[in-house]
C-alpha cells in the first residue's frame, strides 16, 4: 500500500492500485473518546469528496465521517460495526472504515502528508 495521506476532516487514505482505503486518524479517535457506534455506507454506493459517508458516535455525541475521495464504495469494515471500540485501539490500521474505487486520482494530490497533517491537527484540534 502507498504511504498514507490525510484530509482536513481527519481521515486517512491509503491507495493500492485504483482502490483507496479510508479511516479516521488517531488524532480524531482521541478527540472523539470511546467510540461506541459506527455506521458505514452501503457497498455499491457512490460517494462524493467531502460528502458524508458514515457516522461515529462516542458516549457523548454523534459525528459524521466524510470521504476525502470521490468514488464507489467497494468494501466496508463490518468488524468495527460489531466492535466499535476497535476504532480507538487501531484507528490507522485494522479499524479502517471503507474502501473506494477511485474515480479521479487527482483528488489525492489535494491531501496532506503525515508531517503536514500532524501540524494541521495541532493547530486545529477539533
Amino acid at each position, binding site marked *: 500500500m502507498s504511504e498514507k495521506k490525510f484530509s482536513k476532516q481527519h481521515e486517512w487514505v491509503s491507495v493500492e492500485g485504483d482502490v483507496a482505503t479510508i479511516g479516521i486518524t488517531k488524532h480524531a479517535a482521541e478527540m472523539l*473518546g*470511546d467510540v*461506541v457506534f459506527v455506521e458505514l455506507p452501503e457497498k455499491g454506493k457512490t460517494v462524493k469528496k467531502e460528502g458524508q459517508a458514515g457516522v461515529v*458516535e462516542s458516549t*457523548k455525541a454523534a459525528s459524521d465521517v466524510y470521504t476525502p475521495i470521490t468514488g464507489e464504495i467497494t468494501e466496508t469494515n463490518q468488524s468495527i460495526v460489531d466492535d*466499535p*471500540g476497535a476504532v480507538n485501539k487501531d484507528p490507522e490500521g485494522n479499524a479502517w472504515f471503507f474502501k473506494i474505487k477511485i474515480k479521479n486520482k487527482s483528488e489525492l494530490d489535494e491531501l496532506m502528508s503525515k508531517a503536514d497533517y500532524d501540524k494541521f491537527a495541532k493547530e486545529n484540534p477539533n
Partner: protein
Amino acid sequence: MDTQKTALYEYHKSLGAKFVPFAGYQMPVQYSSGIVEEHKTTRSEAGLFDVSHMGQLSIEGSADLILALEKIIPTDFKNIKLNQSKYSFLTNENGGIYDDLIVTKVERGFNIILNAACKDNDFKIIKNALGGKFKLTLHKDLSLIALQGPKASEILENIINGISSLKFMNGKNFSYNSAQIYITRSGYTGEDGFEISIANNMVEDFAKSLIAKGAKPIGLGARDTLRLEAGLCLYGHDINETTTPIEANLKWAISKRRREEGGFLGYNKIKSDINGELSRLRIGIKPAGKIIAREGTKIFSVDGQEIGSVTSGTFGPSVNGPIAMGYVKFDFVKSGTKILLEVRGKKYDAKVSELPFYKKNYVR
C-alpha cells in the same frame, strides 16, 4: 459571563482532565482513561466527582419556615427527620419543575442542593416566596464532592471515622482536620456513595487523600452515563418547566400527605395528573441494536404514529448497549411495548424498558 472555576480546577488539570464549559463553569468531562473506563471504575471500585458547580443553599428557620417551604416544594417538611435527605422539586404554578433538588433537615433549618444552571434563579424564587423572614445563603465558600461506588464507604472510612454507619439518604456533621464538614450518603450514579460539603480551602487536600486511598477521578461524561443507567433525570433534558413530576414518573418523590393535601404551587395540575388525566409519561427505552437515540429523537408506534421523543440517550457501558429515556403517550408506556426510533431519517426497533437499566442495592 466569564466561566468560573471550582476550587479543584488546578487539581483536575494535574490529573489530566479534559475540560468543557458546563453551566458557566469549566468542568472536567473526562480524564485520560476515558468515559467508559471511568464509568466502569465507579461501578466496580470508587469514583471521585467534583460537583462544586452545584448550588448549596442553606435556609435558617423553624416552624414558620416549614410552612413557607411547603408552599413551593412538595416535600413533607413536617415529617422529615433531623439529618434526613429527600429528593424533591421546586414546582411552578403549572405543575412544571423549576429545578429538582435534594433537601436535608439540619439543626438550624434546611440545606438544599440545587442544579448549577438553575441555582441563581432558584435562589430568587425561593427568596421571593419566603419573604424577608429567613436567612438564606447560597454558599460560595463551600465545595461539593461526591465519592461513589462499592468501595466508597471503605475508602472514606479511612479519613472519616464512623462514616460507614451513615444510612442512605441521611447526613451528618463530621470533623476533618478540626473543621466541621457535612456528609450525606447519596449520589447520582446508582451506586452507594457520599456527597461531601467542605470549605473551598480544604477540598483539594481532602480530594487528594481520597485519591491516595484508591478513589479515581471521574468526569461529567461518566456521570451522565452512570445516572442514565440508574434511570435518574437530568434537569433541562428529562425534566423542565413544562414537565410535571407525575409525567416524569416521579410521583414517589411526593409523600402521600402532600399528594392528598396539596398546598404547593402547581398542585391543581399535579392532582389532575395523579387522578388519571395523564397524557404522557417518562419511560426507559432500549434500542434493539447498537443505534444510539440522542435527545430529540422522535418516537413512533409500530403503526407509524408519532408518540413522543427521547430526552436523554447514550451508550451504557455497564448495560453494554444503547439506552435512552423519553416521553411517550400514555397508551404506549407499558414495559416491553415495541416502538420505533427515528435516527438520521431511518426508523429503528426499540422497546419500552423498566427503569433503572442498572440496579444496585443501597445501604439502608
